[in-house]
């Protein structure tokens, strides 16, 4: 397997008030194509910051972030937005669906940034919804769906544009155990059958158990590396 994500000596610091807080200290990390990586660690350890850098939502203070063959830490805001649209699928803890749009319309949103025709978009949306087991719920609005179903719609939205990388921030954090397990099974299936590379931040060891590798962050540094499967 080849490395699809490479972080080289990455640091990230924020200015909070008058204080400068360094969140990541010289992180080096490689994620292989087709890998399902779980990032774990206590609150404030820098997990989400690391995820944001990999996903191109934020820029490092120093170091290099390379995804695919693109060094994304050098991209402008506009170029980064365009890059995210083509390469990254996001799954959030609280689903973050647009409340007035139907499930279908929510899934279609990333495709609006492509040159696909209306018919092609509709076909892709149906395929994605079918893949997450919600083909019959396309016309429902988020408030008409359970938490688990909403997260499935969010997963369909994340995969519909066929991104290089799926990035998940506590995808089961708002779900009960049964729904959490279903979502993790779905992510695992996407990883194993569709070959999707997944980077997931989680507090939940059970969720991390579905990943192929776990990484622990502590005080902005990778603590240990463990192969799960």
């Amino acid at each position, binding site marked *: 397997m080849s490395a699809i994500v490479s972080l080289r000596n990455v640091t990230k610091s924020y200015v909070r008030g008058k204080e400068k807080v360094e969140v990541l200290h010289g992180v080096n990390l490689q994620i292989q194509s087709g890998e399902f990586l779980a990032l774990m660690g206590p609150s404030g350890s820098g997990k989400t910051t690391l995820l944001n850098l990999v996903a191109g939502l934020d820029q490092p203070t120093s170091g290099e972030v390379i995804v695919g063959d693109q060094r994304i830490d050098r991209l402008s805001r*506009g170029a980064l*937005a*365009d890059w995210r*649209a*083509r390469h990254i699928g996001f799954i959030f803890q609280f689903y*973050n669906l647009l*409340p007035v749009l139907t499930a279908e319309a929510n899934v279609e949103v990333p495709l*609006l940034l492509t040159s696909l025709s209306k018919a092609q978009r509709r076909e892709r949306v149906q395929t994605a919804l079918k893949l997450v087991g919600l083909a019959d719920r396309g016309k429902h609005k988020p408030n008409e769906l359970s938490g688990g179903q909403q997260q499935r719609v969010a997963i369909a939205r994340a995969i519909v544009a066929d991104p290089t990388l799926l990035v998940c921030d506590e995808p089961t954090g708002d779900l009960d155990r049964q729904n959490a397990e279903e979502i993790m099974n779905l992510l695992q299936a996407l990883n194993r059958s569709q070959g999707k590379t997944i980077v997931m931040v989680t507090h939940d060891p059970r969720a991390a158990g579905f990943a192929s590798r776990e990484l622990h962050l502590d005080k902005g540094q990778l603590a240990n590396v463990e192969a799960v499967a």
Partner: protein
Amino acid sequence: MKYFRLVWAGLARKKARTILTMLSIIVAFLLFGLLQGVNQGFNQVVENLNVNRLYTSAKTNMVDGLPISYAQRIKSVPGVQHVSHWTYFGGYFREAKNAIPAFATDAEALFAIYKEIKIKPEYIEAMKRTRTGALVSDQLAKQYGWKIGDRIPLGTSIWTNKEGSNTWYFDLVGTFDVSSYGIGFPSFYINYDYYDEAKAFGKGVVHYYLIGIADPLQATRVAKAIDSQFENSMNETRTQTESGLAQNNLKQVGDINFIVNAIVGAVLFTLLFLTANTMMQSVRERIPELAVLKTLGFSDGKVLTLVLVEAFLLCIFAALLGLFFAALIFPGLKALIGDLPMPLSVVLMGVGIAMLLALISGLPPALRAQRLNIVDALAGR
């Protein structure tokens, strides 16, 4: 068009607020349409007035009147083609509340000056033949159901006739069509000769001389020449063009332009704050959603455009509805401004103001959305 659903999603998120804001904009532009329409209507009427016509009245006050003998002297001024006159009769039909703008005149000369008023020549002949004759506008005849041959009793609070009565009887001999003129043309005429003979007092006096001139470019010269004829006499004159007279009359009502602009300005200024507040609140509530759009790859420019389009859609759609309702209601103001459609310039001005409103109210929240930092917004900071 593919982004329309996202724009709509922004508006539909709080339906009640969007509807209430739209209603405010609709009402404001309805008011704008009606008031500006009336304003433009008045202006249009004044602009349409003919500079071929001059009006001469007593320099002191129109009601003081001028001697009928002035007619010949005015006619002798070079450049004058026709001379007629108006004397206010101040009539009413049956009850004082049914006011009739009746004037005594020389009908033949009058309609020679007002060529745009459509009247059949036989009606003018009938007027000449019938001393007690009356000519009325189609509209007035229709309003009271009068027909040619009817004998119309007309009361007046000013003129008592020789029989000691304030009710005069006139025979309707013809009608005329004023639609090409607009508003302001008196709609009931009686023969001056009969009126002057039959009234008990104030004989030989007219209120206005109406003068048709050959060359509009000579209007100022002819007006000066007329006034100079009567300088230092017992009855000095004041001669104005028709539009000048109309403007002076409108000034007596008040500076309509100023009043209308002040009201519309205050309404639109208030509306600006209301719409800006709505847009700002709407964007503030949707910060996480806008952050998600940016996360999915929507550029800063696209997010700015989405919010701006939302403001434009809200303002322009509602403004067009308001202007549409104003155009529907506008014909109901016929009594005030005549039979005029709502001027296109008012609609265009309304759309322009709506666009400006959308830009001013939509730009600050759109810029806020554009500058949104994804990481902070998703973290709720």
